[in-house]
């Protein structure tokens, strides 16, 4: 059976201090989870997610750090540089949850352009993801040579112009930041909304889907992987996680008779309400059925539910040999079993360098 992957949201309502986020990330790391996510939006009170991830990076050791950074109203060049830098400061543990800012309220905060339909914004998000990957590749890994004899610090033949021209922006490159430790930090896209699906299939390493049953999750996964294959990707490089809100406030077992421990449909998507033991059952069942590669869980009550998740659900999955008890690698890509991407520009020059 392929490895099971687990990620958890560590968002807090309106906390601007580092300590609560760090506490959650350390707990998740204690459970050997793949990564934690930090949501973000310009439209609600809360700290800059990438900043929080950078702040907790030196105080954590293995856990992946995946902040949301919107591709609307931001500069693609700055965004890719910030995400690459998060990868440098965390020694290869950075991810990036791409999102769009679709409301008029967000547009007015910038005053640069009007709100646009989600289809357009997700197309732009795809362009931003593409441009970012090119900029991450714009430095070959061994571009820094420090050759005293010739006086050259870098081999400029190993630096490349991205020359990306999209529908809403263009970027010349190269990046200012050398290629990050993971080559490409891990890109996560919530593919629940149909408008986001193509961008997820083209550019994501991890796609999130919301499904109320293992069958529906499996169907969503098959669809995304099929799309990825159509776009010329090896579908195995796209991991699909079920996104689930969890409320573990009800003792050891599910207190909702009749739904058999499965998630309940709610306005915000499927939600699991019950105990950590039954959640472990659900995760094991879905995983055994091959429905998904992993789960992204969002606790209803950040402190309580994360604690129950790690010490209850995760401990049980580990006990049954279904989930790792330590990190065999050090980068987020290694946790996810994803290879470090080859550099597209190095591939062009081959051995000639």
């Amino acid at each position, binding site marked *: 059976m392929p490895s099971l992957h687990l990620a958890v949201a560590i968002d807090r309502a309106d906390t601007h201090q580092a300590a609560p986020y760090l506490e959650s990330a350390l707990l998740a790391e204690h459970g050997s989870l793949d990564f934690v996510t930090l949501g973000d939006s310009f*439209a609600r009170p809360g700290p800059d997610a990438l900043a929080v991830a950078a702040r907790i990076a*030196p105080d954590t050791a293995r856990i992946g750090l995946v902040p949301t950074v919107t591709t609307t*109203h931001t500069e693609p060049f700055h965004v890719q540089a910030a995400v690459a830098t998060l990868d440098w400061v965390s020694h290869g543990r950075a991810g990036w949850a791409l999102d769009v800012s679709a409301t008029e309220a967000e547009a007015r905060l910038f*005053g640069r352009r009007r709100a646009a339909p989600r289809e357009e914004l997700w197309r732009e998000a795809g362009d931003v993801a593409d441009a970012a990957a090119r900029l991450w590749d714009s430095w070959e890994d061994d571009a820094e040579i420090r050759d005293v004899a010739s006086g050259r610090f870098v081999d400029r033949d190993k630096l490349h112009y991205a020359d990306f021209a999209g529908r809403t922006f263009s970027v010349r490159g190269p990046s200012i930041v050398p290629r990050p430790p993971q080559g490409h930090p891990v890109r996560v896209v919530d593919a629940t909304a149909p408008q986001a699906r193509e961008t997820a299939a083209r550019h994501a390493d991890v796609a999130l889907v919301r499904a109320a049953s293992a069958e529906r999750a499996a169907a969503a996964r098959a669809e995304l992987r099929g799309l990825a294959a159509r776009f010329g990707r090896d579908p195995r490089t796209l991991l699909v996680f079920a996104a689930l809100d969890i409320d573990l406030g009800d003792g050891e077992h599910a207190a909702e008779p009749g739904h058999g421990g499965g998630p309940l449909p709610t306005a915000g998507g499927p939600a699991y309400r019950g105990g950590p033991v039954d959640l472990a059952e659900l995760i094991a069942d879905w995983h055994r059925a091959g429905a998904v590669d992993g789960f992204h869980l969002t606790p209803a009550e950040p402190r309580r539910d994360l604690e129950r998740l790690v010490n209850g659900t995760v401990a049980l999955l580990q006990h049954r040999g279904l989930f790792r008890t330590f990190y065999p690698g050090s980068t987020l890509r290694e946790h996810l079993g994803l290879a470090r991407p080859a550099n597209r520009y190095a591939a062009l020059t081959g051995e000639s360098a």
Partner: protein
Amino acid sequence: MTRRHETAQRPKQVHLAAHFPGVNNTTVWSDPASGSHIDFSSFASLARTAERGLFDFFFLAEGLRLREHKGRIHDLDVVGRPESLTVLTALAAVTERLGLAGTVNATFNEPFELARRFAALDHLSAGRAAWNVVTTSDAFTGENFRRGGYLDRADRYTRAAEFLATARELWDSWTPDGRPRPFAHRGRHFSVEGEFTAPRSPQGHPVVIQAGDSPEGREFAASAADVIFTRHGTLEAGREFYADVKGRLAKYGRSADDLKIMPGVTFVLGDTAAEAQEKATEIRRDQVSPQNAILALEQVWGVDLSAYDPDGPLPDIDPDPDSELVQGRVKITDPFAVAAKWRALSEAKGLSIRQTVIETTARQSFIGTPDRVAADLTEFVRTDAADGFILVPHLTPGGLDDFVDRVVPLLQERGAYRTAYEGTTLRSHLGLREPVWKG
């Protein structure tokens, strides 16, 4: 001008900050002790040294496009660096008191997003954030951004001033007791409205730093900055600049204490004066490699001089004032005058190309024994040529070790420097008041 006294008894104190040496030829990357300019450990190590030395802040420059020379990426100096704000936020985890200053361009950013990122740095560092506001009108840099290179040179400071004013409106938009209130700014460059996402941060506003020696730059700093980062390395030039800038404050309702003047300076230490001089000469030779000497010459002349011998005489051809040879650097306004000056110097002293470039471009401000350097720094501050210094070491990450171990204790003995941090925020280190909330 009345001399500044932090307390009635205590003489004027020296402020110190550390510049992470990066993309320039101050950095001697060929030295075996030169470490990575990218790995976080280099930043953490230099920042910890600065904090051990009780420095006010740690300063990062910014790059938005790799420099080019003759249409190709410049490859002789350090190239590439991580993004400043992300590194500084991570440094907040490994330091406790040190201020964290990031250079971020006001031309290729938007006020809402940047105000938010600096508010986050200030919150996550418990009050240690600073923003060095810079501008560019350069279409070359603009090729990396949505905005492109449209901005007129004349609009640089008006946009920057409005940018900063807008950021301050955002930082003031929450009430001191933590309630968000809607903001609206309508101006020439920005028209934005809504609700800011962060409460008022520990310093009220992050400290604002400004660099620039032009009259517009001085005026902008006098009206809006907390710290001005200058280049005036001599005592006379420093005093003149100091008097000029501090003299501009009153018309903005500000006092001399509201703006700290901190030149960026280098230093070389030795056990004797002769040893320090010898070391300084060696560093300058390392900074100006034969290839760098030709390149420096090409930057003045604007023509390809690669056929010249760096150990031979200067070329006797004229510069090309319309040259597009150099990109991403400040253009020399009168290349004929610079070329004439270099030629005269070379002829008078019998200097080769490389020697001439070493003489004219290598900046070394304080050379001597630790005692001499401590005395010189103290004199600069006590005679109002500066309020402090931004030290630019030539090595990463160990370039401040000697200074902190050997000069700082001597400054303390002289009563010119703190022996412990007295507050927790950068504003408190700098002796700056928290900005009044303009609700």
